[in-house]
């Protein structure tokens, strides 16, 4: 017993896996001492600013920069003509398309970059933007993807005759690709033969990640040593380095990319924006550093949006509710250029996770990408690639099917869940789910909220409403989601040809502390806290003695960056594997020091112990010292390791979320009375960080479901370019959350962890949306598109005749 206590004490001193260790980053962030791109100031630094298009579709007749150039302090005004000799007036996108860096003859969305002004200070740059005279000739605008596919108006004149795109044949000059998965014929057959079929169009509206810090960069070309340094808000700094090298022709070793502290990314900071290219070109031309920082409106109007998927679903079932088939056709509005940040072979990301948590024998999906006069993007906003869209689609279709069957939606889910013993489970659309126990999670969730009691209360409320005693309805929003994260196996997943592995490099210092560098980059996720915990448990040094460093391509090992919940599944695995290499060498050193054979030692929390002689041991600290100070025959000095981890599979976190919402039928106001979030992310590294991730992710889900959108009028004007109209909840609007968990480790991940940062957004959106729908189910509502802001909820009530 004493031994156990003593061992536990040593274990907890490590602050390793499972410890709710306080975030080490927060010391600087809570004191306002973070260091962001805009905090960088260098001698002689110039400032860039964009002239942007006021029109959504127009020909650029002429650009006259003479007045701007005459303004004292203005150094240059770049246009497409200036970039053309360098072949930088267009740039490749991550999705295999190309995008104008600066308007080349025409503009395709409001806010598009037309000219780049470089000046001695930020104010002069802004003044000069006003002085650049651009003559436009307006063209017909297409904001509706269905109309775009019929229209004679050609948006992308550069590829109007191209019959083949990056992802196969194009059907129309505004069509980008068709992507399909599953068995169309068998699905049609099953739907045709089904006892019940529910069909519905589910729209997941266009929104935006809107990180608190917008995008920006400082580019500095040192003409003496030929080195280009780029600081920026990059979620994937190594990829930026490679792309910058390919575009500029500068050899990759002469480019250093640094992501300093980043104030949130959520997918918005994965891609490459014209501002980066222009700042780099301007620095190369001028030989001095050039800074470009966008403002909030530019961020919302011109950088990567998310979602905008029109999903036509058909789901077939028996009368008893057993699902027999699923078919989904998506019309995907990609805006003016296809700038999705998906793995290259997956133009619709992992949308084919759309069978969700359910054992559906046959399924088929097809996605048509379409050009419109809207900003480009289509990024994974706090989710894996197109996974929120998929989860929303199936969780809405389940509700619609429940209505069609006259069934309770919780029970319908239960009878269709993949069973625990079916894992690893092969889905009809080609995925291998690694592990899960959905029934246990579901039952725990329903019990926690007293589901039966809630349904009873809801029924009583409906009666009271009908008697005129209340004007508020009660909605119970159910969701059981399955995520697919951790891209990914290099054999399937690459971005621009670069396999989506990740990496960790560890150096143990002689006195028993360490530094670990990774190919990822934290934007608030707390990597410096949690990766140190993974390592602490692997190598037996306290997490407090381990520095985690990311984001500098000159020092960090190559990695594909942080998005799609891939950091823990991939870089976290690399960390554990590199830690195990350290331990393997440490074992040899310990064996030498203890004068025993390697096999006579066993690992015990923070030390190697001679089997059967617990008083004979060497701690990792002892071993670290010896590694640097003692000549050990047959071993190199030092204690370092590096691991590049190519995951054998994705991980499949899941969860059960339940939202209880009061809805005022007269004003459309809503109030979340209860929100219960059960997450199963496999092995839990830091419960407190997980809780923080869930709180943040559910809050973003609340925003998306209840108000947040990027909306355009018929002229293509963005109507939601400021935080007055783009809904970003404050603490006041944020409800209380109850978090809970089950723990089903991933069988293929070294520590069994699955990733959690994005689950709450994937599960949260359908939970809120289903709550709104459920409140009106008794009055006949089947489907009403998000966002569920006041007037749209009011409109539901009005259309159901509840205002008489």
């Amino acid at each position, binding site marked *: 017993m004493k031994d156990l206590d003593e061992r536990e004490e040593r274990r907890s001193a490590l602050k390793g896996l499972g410890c709710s260790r306080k975030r080490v980053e927060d010391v600087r962030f809570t004191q306002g001492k973070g260091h962001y791109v805009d905090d960088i100031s260098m001698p002689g630094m110039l400032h860039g600013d964009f002239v942007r298009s006021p029109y959504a579709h127009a020909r650029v007749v002429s650009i006259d920069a003479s007045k701007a150039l005459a303004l004292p302090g203005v150094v240059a005004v770049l246009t497409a003509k200036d970039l053309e000799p360098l072949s930088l007036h267009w740039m490749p996108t991550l999705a295999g398309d190309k995008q104008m860096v600066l308007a080349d003859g025409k503009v395709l969305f409001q806010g598009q970059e037309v000219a780049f002004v470089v000046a001695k200070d930020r104010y002069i740059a802004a003044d000069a933007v006003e002085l650049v005279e651009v003559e436009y000739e307006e063209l017909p605008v297409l904001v509706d993807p269905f109309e775009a596919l019929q229209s004679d108006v050609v948006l992308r004149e550069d590829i109007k005759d191209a019959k083949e795109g990056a992802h196969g044949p194009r059907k129309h000059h505004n069509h980008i690709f068709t992507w399909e998965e599953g068995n169309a014929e068998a699905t049609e057959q099953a739907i045709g033969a089904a006892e019940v079929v529910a069909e519905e169009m589910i729209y997941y509206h266009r929104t935006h990640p809107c990180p608190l810090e917008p995008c920006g960069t400082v580019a500095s070309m040192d003409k003496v040593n030929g080195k280009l340094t780029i600081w920026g808000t990059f979620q994937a700094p190594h990829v930026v380095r490679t792309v910058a090298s390919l575009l500029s022709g500068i050899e990759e070793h002469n480019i250093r990319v640094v992501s300093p502290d980043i104030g949130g990314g959520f997918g918005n900071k994965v891609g490459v924006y014209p501002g980066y290219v222009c700042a780099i070109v301007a620095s190369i031309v001028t030989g001095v550093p050039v800074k470009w920082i966008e403002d909030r409106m530019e961020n919302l109007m011109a950088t990567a949006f998310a979602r905008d998927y029109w999903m036509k679903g058909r789901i077939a079932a028996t009368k008893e509710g057993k699902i027999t088939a699923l078919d989904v056709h998506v019309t995907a509005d990609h805006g003016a250029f296809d700038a999705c940040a998906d793995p290259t072979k997956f133009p619709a990301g992992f949308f084919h996770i759309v069978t969700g948590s359910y054992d559906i024998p046959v399924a088929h999906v097809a996605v048509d990408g379409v050009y419109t006069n809207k900003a480009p993007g289509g990024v994974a906003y706090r989710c894996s690639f197109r996974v929120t869209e998929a989860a929303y689609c199936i969780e809405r279709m389940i509700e619609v099917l429940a209505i069609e069957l006259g069934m309770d939606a919780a029970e319908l889910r239960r009878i269709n869940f993949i069973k625990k013993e079916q894992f690893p489970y092969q889905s009809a659309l080609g995925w291998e789910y690694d592990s899960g126990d959905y029934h246990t999670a579901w039952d725990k969730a329903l019990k926690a909220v007293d589901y039966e009691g809630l349904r009873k209360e809801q029924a009583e409320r409906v009666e009271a409403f009908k008697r005129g005693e209340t004007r508020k309805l009660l909605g119970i929003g159910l969701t059981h989601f399955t995520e697919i994260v951790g891209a990914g196996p290099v054999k399937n997943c690459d971005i621009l040809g670069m396999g989506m592995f990740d990496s960790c490099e560890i150096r143990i210092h002689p006195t028993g502390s360490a530094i670990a560098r990774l190919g990822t980059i934290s934007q608030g996720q707390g990597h410096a806290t949690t990766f140190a915990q993974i390592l602490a448990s692997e190598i037996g040094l306290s997490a407090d003695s381990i520095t985690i460093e990311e984001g500098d391509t000159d020092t960090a090992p190559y990695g594909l960056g942080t998005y799609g919940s891939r950091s823990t599944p991939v870089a976290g695995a690399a960390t554990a594997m590199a830690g195990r290499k350290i331990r393997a060498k440490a074992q040899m050193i310990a064996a030498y020091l203890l004068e025993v054979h390697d096999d006579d030692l066993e690992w015990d929390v923070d030390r190697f112990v001679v089997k059967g002689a617990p008083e004979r041991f060497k701690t990792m600290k002892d071993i670290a010292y010896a590694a640097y100070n003692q000549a050990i025959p047959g071993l190199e000095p030092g204690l370092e390791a590096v691991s590049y981890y190519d995951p054998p599979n994705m991980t499949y976190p899941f969860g059960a979320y339940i939202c209880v919402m009061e809805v005022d039928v007269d004003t459309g106001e809503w109030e979340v009375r209860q929100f219960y979030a059960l997450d199963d992310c496999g092995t839990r590294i830091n419960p407190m960080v997980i809780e923080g991730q869930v709180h943040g992710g559910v809050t973003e889900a609340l925003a998306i479901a209840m108000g947040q959108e990027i909306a355009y009028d018929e002229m293509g004007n963005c109507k939601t370019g400021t935080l007055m109209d783009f809904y970003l909840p404050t603490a006041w*609007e944020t409800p209380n959350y109850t978090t809970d968990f089950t723990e089903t480790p991933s069988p293929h991940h070294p520590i069994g962890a699955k990733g959690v940062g994005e689950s709450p957004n994937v599960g949260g959106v359908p939970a809120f949306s289903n709550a709104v729908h459920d409140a009106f189910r008794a009055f006949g509502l089947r489907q009403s598109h998000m966002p569920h802001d*006041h*007037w749209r909820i009011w409109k539901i009530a009005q259309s159901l005749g509840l205002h008489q």
Partner: protein
Amino acid sequence: MIPANFEYYRPDSVAAALGILQEHGDEARVIAGGHSLIPMMKLRMAEVPHLIDLQAIAALRGISIEGGTVRIGAMTTQNELITHDDLLQAAPILREAALQIADPQVRYMGTVGGNVANGDPGNDMPGLFQALDASFELHGPEGIRSVPARDFYEAAYMTAREDDEILTAITFARTSGGYAYEKQKRKIGDYATAAAAVLLTKEGGKVATAAIAMTNLSDTPVFCADAAGALVGTECTTDALAAADAAMQAVIDPMQDNRGPAEFKRHVAGVILKRAILRAWSRA
């Protein structure tokens, strides 16, 4: 979001401020809390070569209550309205309304004078002061004049104030009876989807006097004399509420925006007016 160049002035008296205003004509504007003007300047939708900051003019600050009259200096902040104990006694509706404006950070800087002088139909204080039948004190080169709040607003951002005048104070009579300020908004910091200010007094179990004004439902605040009249002599019954609603609907003119279509705003206006009347009635 970078403003154009401007000259900054910080006079310490109204006379000095008026002098600068006269010197530069329509190239100059005064600034109070800055919550409307600064964003407009950053967006370059307002060009103000000469910006006159009123922060240093002590005479424009403070709340005084003498006899039956309340006088609020133009540079008094929303937060000061909320924390002033005597004002709570003299006109409790001000605190109720001010608490529904934006968030504490904004209320520490945002002023009453700026709120009413800017002429933004989204601002809460103009309608409120119309309900209170307040007067706005204007200092100009010709001296001081007083304009009733109910006559001050002409169109969005267009008011009875001349370009060379400064709004210096707001005066109104102490209130008695019931009051309510009801506002629906999308989130903290948003302008109203619809807001209603209601004041009423009760005699012999019936409404004796009433005043109603609506916010963000037209290009000016909407003083609803007929709606108030529909309540007088009633016990705020369902019929009286319906009559007040109908009279209010006849004078508002909401426009579609991101908060929703006009018919939704009309519906919400009716709901919150009824709620405000009933709350005021319960307090009368």
